[in-house]
């Protein structure tokens, strides 16, 4: 550990909502402890470091970089490579960096259709000249380069080498703290591990009483008043808990909201959506194909339901273009 013996810590926010930044701030008084053990050398959200400052650091200068957000633009990707080079440990922090998360659902579309919808067709758009983002723009001062908006959202791990993955949308503060402690103590798990989460699924932490499953009808959450003692899945509400890594403390189901799956797939599952889909469909109580078809056809938006947080990280990554 260099100089003052403090860690050199960087934080970066790529394509994400900012919730992960808030989650760090949510450490509250513990932030003061962070300050005791670490020097923050890059945190655009809270401190005034420039990219050029980072570029000037020697390679591997930062001990740890917590990178949140997916790779939506060429700028995101550029920073991913840069921070990789400048950090000893690169952590994909939060669901966006880990698996694409909500921004990743844009993978159902491509650049052109997104631009069209957002800049031209949306109800609030006032764009008579039909301007859409360009990668270069001529200013009086000269030509400026604007980051390219990619067709496909990627995860951090898909563009660069990542040391650890910290899931959650956002990661929960006790988990963040546990990871920081582990880093400070140097007690690190093998590279590539998912940290700050459990090996079992959300069900393991869930208070709802589960029974054998047999589902005749699926309900969207607003269509039914859920019995707050019984498993939501058993009641026909699609809950991603069974196919989602625990660690969050079953926050959502605690208040009878079905799990959406933000902690990503459990350790042995390659494709969270397929796994949840298999479980959901297998317990449909149908004795004929027609009946099964009728019951499952009530599930709206399968990708949005089963891959809400993991589309870019899934086997197929995106819808076909």
């Amino acid at each position: 550990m260099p100089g003052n013996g403090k860690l050199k810590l960087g934080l970066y926010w790529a394509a994400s909502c900012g919730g992960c930044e808030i989650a760090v701030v949510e450490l509250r008084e513990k932030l003061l402890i962070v300050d005791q053990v670490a020097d923050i050398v890059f945190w655009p959200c809270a401190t005034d470091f420039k990219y050029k400052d980072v570029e000037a650091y020697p390679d591997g200068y930062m001990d740890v970089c917590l990178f949140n957000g997916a790779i939506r633009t060429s700028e995101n990707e550029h920073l991913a490579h840069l921070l990789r080079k400048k950090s000893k440990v690169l952590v994909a922090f939060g669901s966006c960096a880990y698996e694409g998360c909500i921004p990743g659902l844009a993978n159902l579309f491509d650049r052109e259709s997104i631009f069209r919808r957002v800049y031209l067709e949306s109800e609030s758009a006032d764009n008579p000249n039909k301007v859409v983002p360009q990668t270069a723009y001529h200013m009086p001062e000269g030509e400026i380069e604007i980051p390219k908006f990619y067709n496909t959202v990627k995860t951090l791990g898909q563009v660069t080498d990542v040391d650890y993955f910290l899931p959650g949308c956002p990661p929960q503060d006790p988990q963040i703290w546990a990871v920081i402690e582990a880093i400070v103590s140097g007690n690190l798990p093998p590279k590539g591990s998912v940290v700050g989460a459990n090996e079992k699924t959300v069900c393991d932490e869930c208070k709802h009483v589960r029974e054998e499953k047999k589902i005749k009808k699926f309900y969207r959450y607003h269509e039914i008043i859920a019995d707050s003692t019984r498993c939501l899945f058993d009641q026909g509400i699609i809950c991603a808990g069974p196919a989602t890594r625990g660690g969050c403390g079953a926050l959502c189901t605690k208040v009878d909201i079905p799990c959406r799956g933000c902690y990503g797939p459990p350790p042995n599952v390659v494709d969270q959506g397929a796994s949840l889909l298999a479980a959901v469909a297998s317990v449909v109580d149908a004795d004929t194909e027609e009946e099964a078809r009728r019951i499952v056809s009530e599930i709206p938006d399968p990708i949005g339901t089963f891959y809400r947080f993991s589309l870019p990280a899934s086997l197929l990554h995106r819808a076909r273009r």
Partner: protein
Amino acid sequence: MSNNGKFEPRIVAFLCNWCTYTAADTAGVSRMKQPPNVDIIRVMCTGRIDPVFVLKAFAEGADGVIISGCHPPGDCHYTNGNYKTFRRMPLVEMLLQQYGIEPGRFHWGWISGAEAPKWAELTREFTEQVRKLGPLNWKKQFASKED
């Protein structure tokens, strides 16, 4: 896969050991005409077919996927593994559709051990159907650095 520049579809078939695999075996032993485009992966029962296998096959480069097992209601060697299949596959169809994969690239159904000719016919017809749809080449969807 190309053969003298001509598109040759690659098809992965997941077959249950007791019905369609037997039919495929009989079709082979009986020298029934089948295109070489279909590669078979044997599982004990269609109930074993995790939807992830279908996605994996497409992700790896398959142009079409077949799932086939024992006729419901009661032909399944394990009583009702095929029930789980007919509960899962309609949802898989919905999913594939949303992924933009044409329905014609995914076939699931039933062929009993006694229906070798039906298997041979399915491989012929399905191969032609996928050939018409052209290459899927899923890896290309994601490979380009620029995008």
